C-alpha cells in the first residue's frame, strides 16, 4: 500500500535573481502573487487537484519563510499519512554535505526519498510558474504514447522564443530536437518545465549524468542525452494560461492578467487554488473611494482610487491617492494624495503623502525597502 503510481518532485530552490530584491530574503516560489497567494500555491494546488498526494519540495535558497509556509502541506490537503508533502533541503551525509548543483542533481540527491514510494512515474515540476493544469491527463497521454518522458509544451509568441527551451516535434508530437533559447527557432512550442518520466529510465540517466557532467540540469543534460539515445520523448500540448514569472515585468503582467479575462480565473470552484489563509478582518471601502477593475484582499482599507490594480491583504490606501496598473503587496501603507502607476510595491512598505511613483511606460519599477526614496519617488518627473 505504500507504493505510489506517481510521485511529484517540485523544484523550489531557485534564487530567482531576475526578480531583484523581491527575492533577497525569500525564495522565488514564496513570492506573493494574486492578492493573497504565493507563486508555489499554483503548482501545489495543481498536484492536489490532480489527486497527486506525494510531493517532494526541493528547497535550497532562503527557505525560512517557504518552509514555514509549507509546513506539512495542510492548506493543500497534502498532509497525508502516507506520502504527502515533504520538504527536501540539501543535507550532510557521512561523506560530507553537498548543495544541489542543478535541477537534475537535486533529484539525484533525493533518489532515496523517491525510492521509498517505489513509483512508476515521476512528475518534475517547478514552483516558478502560474498555471492550472490537470497532471493526470498528461499522465494518461504519457501512458498512451508509451513514452520514456513526456514534456508539457505551450505555444509562445515567436518573438519570445529565444527566452525558452523550444521543442521541435514530428506530426505525432514526438520530440525530434530540443533547442535551449534558440535564435532561429523552428517552432514556437516552449517547454513548460513540466516533465513526466518513467522512474527507472530517469534514475538511470541521473546516475549516469552525475558522473559525466557538472551542470546536472534537465534541459541542458538529461533531455539532450535521452534524445541522443533515441529514447521516446513526447510533447504534451497544454491549452490554457501559463506564465513564467521570472522577471519583474512578467510577474507584474501575470498579476494583472487576473483582471483581464485572459484565461486565469481564481473564482473557479472546480480548480480551487489554495493557500495559507492570513485571517484578516473584512476590507473596508470608504465613502469617497473609487475601485474599478481590481482585486482587493481582506484587511485592506481603501479611501482613494484604485484602478486596474491588485491590492493584497492589509494594504491601506489613503484619501486622494491613486493606484493604477500596480501591484501592492501585503502590510503596505500608502499615504494621502500619492499617485502610484505601473509598479510593484513590496511587502510592508510605507509610502509617504503626496509623492508620485512609476512611469507611464518603460520597465516596471519595484519599490521595496532597498529602494532609494529620492530617486523612486521623483521618477514621474522624468
Amino acid at each position: 500500500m505504500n507504493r505510489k503510481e506517481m510521485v511529484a518532485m517540485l523544484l523550489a530552490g531557485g534564487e530567482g535573481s531576475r526578480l531583484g530584491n523581491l527575492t533577497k530574503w525569500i525564495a522565488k516560489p514564496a513570492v506573493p502573487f494574486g492578492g493573497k497567494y504565493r507563486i508555489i500555491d499554483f503548482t501545489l494546488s495543481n498536484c492536489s487537484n490532480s489527486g497527486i498526494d506525494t510531493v517532494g519540495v526541493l528547497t535550497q535558497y532562503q527557505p525560512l519563510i517557504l518552509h514555514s509556509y509549507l509546513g506539512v502541506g495542510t492548506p493543500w490537503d497534502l498532509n497525508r499519512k502516507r506520502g504527502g508533502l515533504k520538504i527536501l533541503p540539501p543535507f550532510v551525509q557521512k561523506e560530507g554535505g553537498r548543495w544541489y548543483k542543478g535541477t537534475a542533481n537535486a533529484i539525484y540527491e533525493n533518489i532515496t526519498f523517491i525510492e521509498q514510494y517505489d513509483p512508476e512515474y515521476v512528475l518534475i515540476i517547478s514552483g516558478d510558474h502560474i498555471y492550472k493544469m490537470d497532471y493526470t491527463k498528461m499522465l494518461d497521454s504519457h501512458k498512451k504514447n508509451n513514452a520514456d518522458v513526456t514534456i508539457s509544451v505551450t505555444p509562445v509568441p515567436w518573438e519570445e522564443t529565444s527566452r525558452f527551451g523550444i521543442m521541435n516535434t514530428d506530426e505525432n508530437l514526438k520530440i525530434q530536437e530540443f533547442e535551449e533559447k534558440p535564435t532561429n527557432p523552428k517552432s514556437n512550442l516552449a517547454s513548460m518545465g513540466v516533465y513526466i518520466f518513467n522512474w527507472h529510465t530517469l534514475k538511470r540517466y541521473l546516475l549516469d549524468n552525475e558522473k559525466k557532467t557538472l551542470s546536472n540540469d534537465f534541459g541542458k543534460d538529461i533531455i539532450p542525452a535521452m534524445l541522443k539515445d533515441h529514447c521516446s520523448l513526447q510533447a504534451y500540448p497544454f491549452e490554457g494560461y501559463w506564465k513564467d514569472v521570472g522577471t519583474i515585468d512578467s510577474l507584474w503582467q501575470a498579476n494583472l492578467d487576473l483582471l483581464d479575462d485572459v484565461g486565469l480565473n481564481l473564482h473557479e470552484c472546480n480548480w480551487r487554488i489554495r493557500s495559507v489563509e492570513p485571517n484578516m478582518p473584512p476590507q473596508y471601502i470608504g465613502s469617497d473611494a473609487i475601485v474599478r477593475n481590481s482585486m482587493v484582499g481582506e484587511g485592506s482599507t481603501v479611501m482613494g482610487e484604485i484602478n486596474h490594480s491588485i491590492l493584497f491583504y492589509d494594504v491601506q490606501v489613503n484619501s486622494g491617492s491613486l493606484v493604477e496598473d500596480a501591484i501592492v503587496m501585503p502590510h503596505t501603507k500608502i499615504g494621502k494624495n500619492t499617485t502610484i502607476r505601473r509598479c510593484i510595491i513590496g511587502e510592508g512598505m510605507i509610502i509617504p503623502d503626496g509623492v508620485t511613483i512609476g512611469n507611464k511606460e518603460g520597465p516596471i519599477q519595484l519599490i521595496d525597502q532597498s529602494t532609494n526614496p529620492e530617486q523612486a519617488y521623483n521618477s514621474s518627473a522624468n
Partner: protein
Amino acid sequence: MNNVLGILHVDEKTQGLHPLTKHRCTASVPFASRYRMIDFMLSSMVNSNIQNIAVFTTLNNRSLLDHLGDGKDWDLDRKQDGLFTFSTNHFKESSNLKALQSAIDYLEKSSQEYVLICLSNLVTNIDFRPLYNQHVKSDADVTVMCTAKEHNDTLFTNIEMDDFQNIMDIDRKQSNMGSLDIYMISKSKLIDLISTHAFKYRYIQDVIRHNMNKNIKVKGFKYEGYVTKINTIKRYYDSSIDLLDPTKFKQLFKDNNEIYTKLKDEPPTTFHNTSSIKNSLIANGCIVEGHVENSILFRGVHVNKGAVIKNSIVMQKCMIGEYAQLDRMILDKEVNVLPNDRFLGTEKKPRVVPKKKTIGTFVI
C-alpha cells in the same frame, strides 16, 4: 492565564433572532462579513491565553460544531487541554446549572484553578487578564464583569457596585452599570456551588444573586472597551451597520487581538469596471459588478451588473441579479435575488430573507 479554564455557554433565547436562528444557534449566526457570533468571545479567551475551553451547546448545534471543528483555527487543537464541546439536553431546558453539573467530571479533571464563565453572545474583544489579576488579588469568591450603560437600558442586568468594587445589588433597581454575565470564580468554589445548588436553582446567575450576601462574596470589574449584545434582529442590524464607523471597527478589530474564525479558501474580491462601492465592509471571494453602499457583504457574494445594494447585510454566497435593488435588507446565506426587482426594509424593521430562498419575479 493558563491557570484559567474558559466556559462558553451559548445563550439560547433565540426567538429574537428568528429566522436567522431557524437552522442554527445564536452562537453560529454569521456576523461582520466573515465571522460567526462565537468567534468574538472565543478569540477573546484565546488571546487572554486561556488554553482549556469548554463550549456548551444545545442540540441545534450542527452548524456550530461544523464551524468549530477540532479548534484548529483558534489554535485549540491540542493533546492537552484545547477545545471541548458539550451538547446537553439539560441546556435545552435552559438550565445552565444542570449543564455545568453534567460536566463536573471535566471540571474536576482539569488542571486549572480558576474558571471564567461567559453566558452571553457578546460581540467584543476583551482581554480577560486584568479581570483575572483583580480577582486573584481580591478576597472575592466571584468577580463579575460589568459595563457602563444607560440607566434605563435593559439589555444588560442592572448591577450596583460601590467604590471598592463590591457588588451591592443585582437586578433590583435601575443602575448605570450592567452585568456582562462574565464571571471569574475559583474552580473549587464553582464545584461547591454546583453541587450545593443544582437542585434548587436553574441558573448559575441566580445562585450568585441569591447567595451573595450570605456565603458568596461578589466583586465587580468594569470593562471600558467596546461591547454589544445581540438578541434581536434590530440589534443585529444596528450592531452590524455600526461597524461601518471606523472608530467602532477599530475597537473590535484591535491590531494585536486578532479575531479568529474558520478559514476558507476564497480568492480576493474582484471589482469589475462597472462596479461602484462606498462605505462598505467586504469579505473575500466576492465579485462586484454593481453598486454597493453602506452595506456588509460576506464571502462569495456575487453582485451583478446594475444591481444596487444599500444599507444591507448580504451573507455568504448570495447571488444578486442584474438591476435588482436592495435597501435595509438582511439576506441569509445563499439567497438568490432575481434580476430587476426591488426589496425594501425599513429603518425600524429591517427585512430578513431566510437561507437559500429565491426572491423576485421570474420574467420570461
